[in-house]
């Protein structure tokens, strides 16, 4: 077998050195009646060329995604990924390494973690960052648990315009902890700040608001933070489209206590929903309650700057059942992509990119409204918006297929009351001509 170097002769030689006559003797600990008899009924072994043909055959059962542009986002955004990133991710020193337990052999990983922590700090305003948790949804659930530990309370107040799958993930994570979950309704595509006061009380641990929200709406986060603090609760901002942070005020400046986010927009492919990269950011006061891996700066034996995993006494391999979380493997490989992406775009580039996104999405919305087939209320939004239409779902799908566009999200799958509403996402992958073609196609 091409992945197993030892020959039959070598294995026999080794068995001799071990002092046994057969492999069976080595595994004599295993009770006979537990041994699997016969062959596993699985396909293979396939030669490499057969394997490629087989998997490519499966791949071709998908539509030709390479030629399609999605008008759907909803937590998964198609941004252009520069070629540099694929080159970096293909380096074996990155993708075949383990979690950086031996800092002398992992400065590449550790410095990258530290740089991403710094980037996310510049975007959120916070100095304590956990750079990689599985995804935005699980990072948000971890953030809620952290807020419950910090406050010692188990009542949470969550915006109805939090990504519905993030909400479901929170529910799963808090289920064992007798948690009361209160939803804040929305009005005009924004979380209704006027009713929040009535939903808060002294038992509340945290208020959770996504910004931009699930409808793309730009919330007045500071108002929610103020109300939370009045009741001794924490303010948690969820950032699903992290590109928005290039234009929007830093969460720290909005009175937010903890940020949980998804960094997929920064150089990570759509990948059918994963692997993505969740993150947390907060104040230094809260570092001992953070879950997950964090890199810190220090010096080595010779006084040279070095990076290590730090604040380790929070973690499962040391604290076991008293750890802040069970997080072990995270999604570190994506950090190279995020680091490279944010470095390439940098201060001006990320601003310009976010500007393109917000202008393009507003352009599409106003053009759609002009066609007469779409209507919607005015509200501030970033690169996603909600409109209602008189077109049938199938009609939208078929028409867009002809111009190689994946349809927007039909909102009724999550919001039963919104029968004919759709959530459109517009990123820099669309040129003005592309958007004109969409308007022409749907506006007929």
């Amino acid at each position, binding site marked *: 077998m091409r992945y197993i170097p030892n020959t039959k002769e070598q294995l026999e030689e080794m068995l001799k050195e071990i002092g046994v006559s057969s492999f069976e003797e080595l595994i004599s600990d295993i009770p006979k009646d537990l041994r699997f008899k016969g062959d596993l009924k699985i396909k293979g072994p396939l030669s490499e060329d057969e394997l490629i043909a087989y998997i490519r055959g499966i791949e071709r059962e998908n539509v030709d995604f390479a030629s399609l542009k999605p008008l759907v986002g909803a937590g998964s955004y198609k941004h252009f990924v520069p070629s540099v990133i694929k080159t970096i991710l293909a380096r074996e020193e990155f993708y075949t390494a383990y979690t950086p337990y031996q800092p002398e052999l992992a400065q590449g990983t550790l410095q990258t973690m530290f*740089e991403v922590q710094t980037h996310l700090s510049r975007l959120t305003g916070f100095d304590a960052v956990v750079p990689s948790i599985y995804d935005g949804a699980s990072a948000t659930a971890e953030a809620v648990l952290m807020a419950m530990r910090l406050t010692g309370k188990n009542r949470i107040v969550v915006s109805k315009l939090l990504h519905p799958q993030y909400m479901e993930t929170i529910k799963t994570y808090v289920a064992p902890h007798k948690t009361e979950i209160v939803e804040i309704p929305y009005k005009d595509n924004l979380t209704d700040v006027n009713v929040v006061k009535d939903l808060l009380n002294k038992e509340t641990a945290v208020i959770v608001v996504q910004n931009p929200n699930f409808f793309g709406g730009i919330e007045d986060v500071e108002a929610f933070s103020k109300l939370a603090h009045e009741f001794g609760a924490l303010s948690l901002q969820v950032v699903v489209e992290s590109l928005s942070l290039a234009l929007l005020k830093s969460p720290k400046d909005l009175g937010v206590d903890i940020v949980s986010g998804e960094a997929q927009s920064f150089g990570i492919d759509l990948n059918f929903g994963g692997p993505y990269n969740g993150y947390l950011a907060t104040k230094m006061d809260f570092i001992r309650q953070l879950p997950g891996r964090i890199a810190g700066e220090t010096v080595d034996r010779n006084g040279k700057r070095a990076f290590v995993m730090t604040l380790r006494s929070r973690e499962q391999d040391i604290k076991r059942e008293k750890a802040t979380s069970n997080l072990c493997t995270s999604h570190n490989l994506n950090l190279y992509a995020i680091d490279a992406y944010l470095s390439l775009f940098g201060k001006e580039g990320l601003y310009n990119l976010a500007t393109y996104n917000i202008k393009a999405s507003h352009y599409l919305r106003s053009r759609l409204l002009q066609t007469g087939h779409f209507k919607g209320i005015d509200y501030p939004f970033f690169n996603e918006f909600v409109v209602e239409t008189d077109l049938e779902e199938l009609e939208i799908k078929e028409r867009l297929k002809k111009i190689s566009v994946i349809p927007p999200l039909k909102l009724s799958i999550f919001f039963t009351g919104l029968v004919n509403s759709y959530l459109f996402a517009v990123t820099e992958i669309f040129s003005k001509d592309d958007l004109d073609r969409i308007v022409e196609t749907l506006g007929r």
Partner: protein
Amino acid sequence: MKLIYEKSVKGRVGYSIKKDEFDGAVEDLIPEYALSKAKKELPEVSEVDVVRHFTKLSKLNYGVDDGFYPLGSCTMKYNPKVNEYLASLDNFTQAHPFSPLEFVQGNLRLMYELEEALKEITGMDRFTLMPSAGAHGELVGVLIMRKYFEDQGKSRSKMLVPDSAHGTNPASSAMAGFKVVEVKSNEVGNIDLDDLKAKMDEDTAGLMLTNPNTVGLFERQIQEIAEVVHSQGGLLYYDGANLNALLGIVRPGDAGFDIVHLNLHKTFSTPHGSGGPGSGAVGVKKNLAEFLPSPLVCNCGKYFGLEEPRKSIGRVKAFFGNFTVLVKAYAWILSMGNDGLKMVSETSVINANYVLAKLKKYYRPAYDRFCMHECVLTGRDYKEYGVKTLDIAKRLIDYGFHPPTIYFPHFEPYAQETIMVEPTESEGKETIDEFIDAMIKISNEAKTNPELLKEAPHITYVSRPDEVKANREPILVYKEK
């Protein structure tokens, strides 16, 4: 080396964006309460700066392709290149998770076929591919246990975890609201059956067990263990971290386990990526399938679709699993087939026992018996020379090897100063011999020149970073002076 921020030059660009032909200004589109007054202070570097930066960083790392990486419990096996290629195919990487299901039939087929293969390999009845990592899978597993008992109308409050277990086991149990009760190991490195009997009761959800366990030994009394747990109505959980020893030899589903999680990034060869992404697929017996996280992939005759288990514990992340990781795992299984999988376990067990046989007189093993796919040695005999196990590990770096796992497992009185070596099936005899030679040389150096070890490694860019300082004075982000 310099941080990317220290290479920043005002006005330098590394990006390109298509022409912005739209009217209007950001100030008109974002309300004052939300608009940032300043641009965010990210670095300004060119494309070539970025490429060189990461190339340099990569040279400070060590991966499986660089050499022997015998991290016990981590299964650092070779990551086949063709699998990387297959996972990077456009129609996989560019698939949007909210695409109409008829657009993603290939993805769903791949998930369906992978599930079928995992069922056959483990002897379980249904799998979720949703969890992102082993620990994520554990959380799913223990939440299923919790829900199973709640559904029967009698919640249970405790979870049994052996003293040799990975830290994730007790941590996951605690996240699922269980009180953790530790079960002792006995003098031969297995679970103390009497201790288990004394602790397993009707308020205990079950036992989380790794088999082979973390000292690399098969739990000989697994049938009795299963009997004890089941006789009290409990469930037996299989931590699949060490499945590499058992492919085609024992199926957890045949050995009484009710729930298993697999680390596709260990046994099934998907790369560890400097610490993820992995995949922690969870398999269950039929009676627990209705509690699996939603959604599951189903074969609905003509099409592949999604279904929500009736009493699902809910979601544990957005969308589906780590799809591209699943592609790599499935490609590996197809490359191996039945014969290949059996050869994996046979070779990994022989390789580990060969290391044990050759090194046991230099590094007294925690338990002196044949091991499975990894062996646990110790550095305790070198304490008298002032040498710690850490020093031995660091010295190995000078010889060109990644150190094994050290100080885990750790429990009284058998496992201290542990050195856990897992060669996997990917290493040939010559490489293993070179490693053995280095270990023997180090054992001599420990006696004759302990300073050499205490100051090791000598060849790396940094040596012995001060972790205490990092912890006491945390610097987690860069600030310009």
